[in-house]
């Protein structure tokens, strides 16, 4: 291998046990703190070129002509590619629907769509050459919302659709529509003493991972290509890349490079095909690195949504019915919109028991930026609305908002509007109880005896906007439900290869999966599982690549469950092999080989009574046990297209938050003082990582409550703030203490009883902060993020 900077084998070799349930440290921690960990943008290859993408300045336009002549003539430019240069029959890609052109073909459908590529010997040369590509556009009418998408004669984003959703959608500009019909809403409404309705708006959030889209493509002698890239799912990338390159999958060898965060934003392709095309055309390695501006156009965002909710309840607070309609803006290409629709629909009622439900959820095709996966995936938008409704209902009933939620809280055995029964612990009421029982943080923390106000503890922070004037505290609660794993009948599996051998007298396990480590700590957990199952202390994590079977995506809170499950499964099989060998080789020396339950512990074969039968060195000698196995969770079913009925989900994850905010009511500035979370994680395989996930997820929810939004100009469908100057994410001064209460109620269907962790805290954090701001201000606030002008009426 000539490429350098590829993460090597990561070994955790400590004397400690380091099995599951311990807070073992990251195997990549040292590399990450010394700056040696090789992220995708750190890749380097001698003689490499730099790729650059020319993007559309318009949201919807016909491409009249493209002239690359002058660009190609520039010194230092090696290739300029357009749609006409695509080498294969297949020109499009897409996670589910292949509707996205690798390079625009005759038409651009969103601001920033890739039109042409340049490879040059320096990034500046590539940029200057790209500026010399002459593209003539003829602007087309825009589709920007539901009204313009479904108006008579509306321009169609994709004509002649033949995807499997096309037949059941009411309009070709609707990607997918999922109704849920459960019980009898008319009867429920008739029983309602109180009915509350609301129209809610959820802004477009960006994943804003810090490591920009990057990668290095190296052409190979066999006509194939080696691609080092930051992604969430190597095999899904491969399935989309190879056909566009006109190569068989085995000639596109992918290795995961260091990933600087993902949060859903790397589930779709960005520069993968482009770098490969340039490398194959020039015969030279090509590196592509987006800058922050380009990154805002380089990945899909969280769907903005409009949600209409109607809840009814009896006087004593029992929910009678729910009617809701959720419209998600999927933007110009489908990405994962259909699955986001399925989630928003099936989880649209929240973690509550409601007998009578009608939900309609759909995703639009528009000329807005494409939207797809982001942490929480459809469940986030719904949670914002149904939790606002719970507070509204509590106010209408004169009830405590937490009590109202607890009264209607789902529990094990409850039935979802999809007809699916919840068959593992669902401690919704308990989570709420726990966050409510916490002591409140002290008031007026900015005051110090005799001294001036500490503005760092006040809304506005360092900007020195208040010394306490106008500041009002508010407290709010929220709880949410997220599915874990891929739903709706998807064959959601993972693959693990585990090798056990004795080297230098010491047993060593190697775990090889294609799981994308994006920061979540999956590799830490894999080593822990191997230690627990194989009783060895030395575990090496092989770099993730496509030389092993698919691990599925690092998304949907699924990797510890599914790839963790696959590692456990493979370790168990390896253990069986070891024991088989032991019995064959040494069985005659001790009767326990045949009669006892045998385990591997401390590098030895032991009986369940603790008696040592042999060391692994004695059992294995020079032999290597090496197995690659797939593992899948329980199958799920698709939702019925008319009624939404079906056992669509495999597992649920629940979290509750209490937010304490201080609002400068005159200026509309917010300081979140504390954001307490309680979450059931089934089993914390690594408690330190679990808490880190919960705190990080909570903070992303806080961000979209008070500052984060991609602003798209409705008149032009162009992004107005593609930068970290104007797309703001929380700093350390915006983020409060986040006390976390972790419950471990085992899900018997899951490996070790664990429950996916990553997404649930992102759901309830936003509505809890909103509820707290409402409590402080008395305002209705039906939109997130809340901006100062919403709080001041200006």
């Amino acid at each position, binding site marked *: *291998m000539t490429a*350098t*900077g590829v*993460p*090597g084998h*990561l*070994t*955790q*070799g400590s004397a400690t046990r380091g099995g599951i349930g311990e*807070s073992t440290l*990251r195997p*990549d*921690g*040292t*590399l*990450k*703190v*010394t*700056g*040696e960990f090789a992220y995708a*943008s*750190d890749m*380097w290859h001698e003689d490499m070129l730099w790729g650059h993408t020319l993007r559309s300045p318009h949201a919807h336009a016909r491409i009249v002509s493209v002239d690359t002549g002058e660009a190609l003539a520039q010194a230092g430019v090696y290739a300029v590619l357009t749609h006409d240069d695509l080498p294969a029959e297949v020109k499009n890609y897409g996670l589910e629907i292949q509707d996205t052109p690798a390079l625009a073909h005759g038409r651009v459908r969103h601001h920033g769509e890739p039109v042409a590529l340049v490879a040059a010997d*320096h990034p500046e040369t590539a940029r200057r050459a790209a500026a010399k590509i002459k593209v003539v556009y003829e602007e087309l009418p825009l589709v920007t919302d539901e009204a313009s998408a479904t108006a008579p004669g509306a321009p169609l984003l994709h004509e002649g659709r033949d995807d499997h959703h096309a037949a059941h959608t009411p309009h070709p500009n609707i990607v997918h529509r999922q109704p849920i019909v459960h019980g009898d809403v008319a009867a429920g409404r008739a029983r309602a003493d109180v009915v509350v309705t609301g129209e809610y708006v959820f802004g477009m959030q960006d994943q*804003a991972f*810090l*490591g*920009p889209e990057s990668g290095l493509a190296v052409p190979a002698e066999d006509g194939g290509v080696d691609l080092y890239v930051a992604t969430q799912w190597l095999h899904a990338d491969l399935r989309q890349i190879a056909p566009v390159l006109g190569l068989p999958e085995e000639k596109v060898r992918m290795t995961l490079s*260091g*990933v*600087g*965060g993902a*949060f859903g934003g790397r589930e779709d392709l960005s520069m993968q095909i482009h770098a490969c095309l340039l490398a194959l055309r020039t015969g030279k390695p090509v590196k592509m*690195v987006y*800058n*922050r501006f380009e990154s805002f156009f380089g990945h899909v965002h969280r769907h903005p949504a409009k949600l209409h909710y109607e809840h009814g309840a009896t006087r004593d607070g029992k929910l009678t019915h729910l009617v809701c309609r959720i419209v998600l803006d999927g933007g110009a290409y489908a990405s994962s919109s259909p699955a986001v629709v399925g989630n928003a629909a099936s989880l649209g009622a929240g973690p509550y028991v409601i007998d009578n439900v009608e939900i309609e959820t759909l995703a639009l095709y528009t000329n807005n930026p494409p939207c797809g996966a982001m942490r929480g995936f459809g469940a986030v938008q719904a949670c914002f609305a149904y939790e606002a409704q719970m507070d509204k209902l509590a106010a209408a009933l004169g009830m405590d908002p937490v009590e109202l939620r607890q009264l209607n809280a789902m529990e094990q055995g409850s039935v979802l509007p999809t007809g699916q029964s919840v068959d593992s612990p669902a401690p919704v009421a308990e989570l709420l109880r726990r966050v409510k029982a916490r002591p409140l943080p002290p008031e007026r923390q900015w005051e110090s005896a005799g001294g001036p106000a500490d503005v*760092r503890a006040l809304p506005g922070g*360092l900007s020195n906007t208040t010394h306490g004037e106008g500041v009002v505290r508010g407290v709010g609660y929220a709880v949410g439900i997220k599915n874990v794993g891929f739903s709706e009948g998807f064959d959601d599996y993972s693959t693990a290869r585990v090798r056990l051998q004795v080297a230098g007298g010491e047993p060593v396990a190697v775990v090889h999966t294609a799981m994308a480590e*994006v*920061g*979540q*700590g999956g590799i830490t957990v894999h080593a822990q599982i191997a230690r627990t199952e194989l009783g060895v202390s030395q575990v090496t994590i092989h770099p993730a690549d496509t030389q092993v079977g698919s691990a599925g995506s690092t998304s949907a809170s699924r990797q510890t469950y599914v790839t963790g499950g696959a590692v456990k499964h493979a370790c168990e099989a390896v253990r069986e092999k070891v024991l088989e060998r032991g019995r064959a080789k040494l069985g005659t020396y001790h009767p326990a080989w045949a009669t006892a339950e045998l385990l591997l512990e401390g590098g030895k074969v032991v009986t369940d009574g603790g008696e040592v039968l042999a060391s692994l060195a004695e059992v294995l000698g020079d032999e290597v046990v090496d197995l690659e196995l797939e593992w899948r969770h329980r199958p799920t079913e698709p939702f019925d297209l008319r009624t939404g009925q079906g056992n669509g989900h495999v597992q649920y994850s629940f979290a509750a938050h209490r937010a304490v905010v201080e609002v400068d009511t005159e200026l509309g500035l917010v300081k979140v003082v504390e954001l307490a979370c309680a979450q059931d994680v089934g089993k914390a395989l690594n408690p*330190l*990582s679990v*808490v*880190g996930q919960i*705190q*990080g*997820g*909570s*903070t992303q929810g806080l961000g979209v409550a008070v500052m984060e939004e991609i602003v798209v100009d409705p008149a032009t469908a162009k992004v107005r703030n593609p*930068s*970290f*100057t104007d797309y703001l994410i929380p*700093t*350390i*001064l915006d*983020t409060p*203490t*986040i006390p976390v209460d972790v419950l471990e109620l085992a899900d018997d269907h899951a490996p070790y009883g664990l429950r996916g962790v990553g997404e649930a805290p992102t759901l309830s954090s936003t509505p809890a902060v909103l509820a707290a701001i409402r409590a402080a201000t008395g305002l209705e606030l039906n939109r997130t993020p809340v901006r100062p002008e919403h709080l001041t009426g200006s």
Partner: protein
Amino acid sequence: MRVNFTVNGRRQEADDVWEGESLLYVLRERMGLPGSKNACEQGECGSCTVRLDGVPVCSCLVAAGQAQDRDIVTVEGLAALAACRTEGGDCASGACGTGLDEARQWRADPARGTDSQTGEGTELSPVQQAFIDAGAVQCGFCTPGLLVAADEMLEANPSPSDADIREALSGNLCRCTGYEKILDAVRLAAARQEGTVSR
């Protein structure tokens, strides 16, 4: 153009530098020191923080030519800097520090033994060790910049309050951790430095 400067205690020279290049680009692409990160290139995230003549700055906003004759410390030089501080040496003199060859060894030979791959046995500064121990590292992309900023803060203010830590690190964005474990890590490093907590 040609630029000469000191990086982590060693004189370095970069040739054929385009005049619009940033110090960050030169460090990453020409010096083989990619530890300083390229997350925003507009001074809004702090991932590229290095010390320029001792002062933390965003290296993405320093034109390469401005680094001429200056002294730069990157995350790759933090351990040596900490060791120097402990020994009371003159850290800016160039007498100590990580040599460029040393710093780029990890990438020069990816087939080296597993120890070099995990960095086990690597000397770490107290703040680096604390980030690992406290779980302050997830994706790690913000980590180098945070470490340089936190190390400098602890040098100037060995027993910071939480508000001091927050203010000193307010120029460093992290998207993974929600900052709680980062605060823990800095508190831990401060406590260890003060000798109130052992390693």
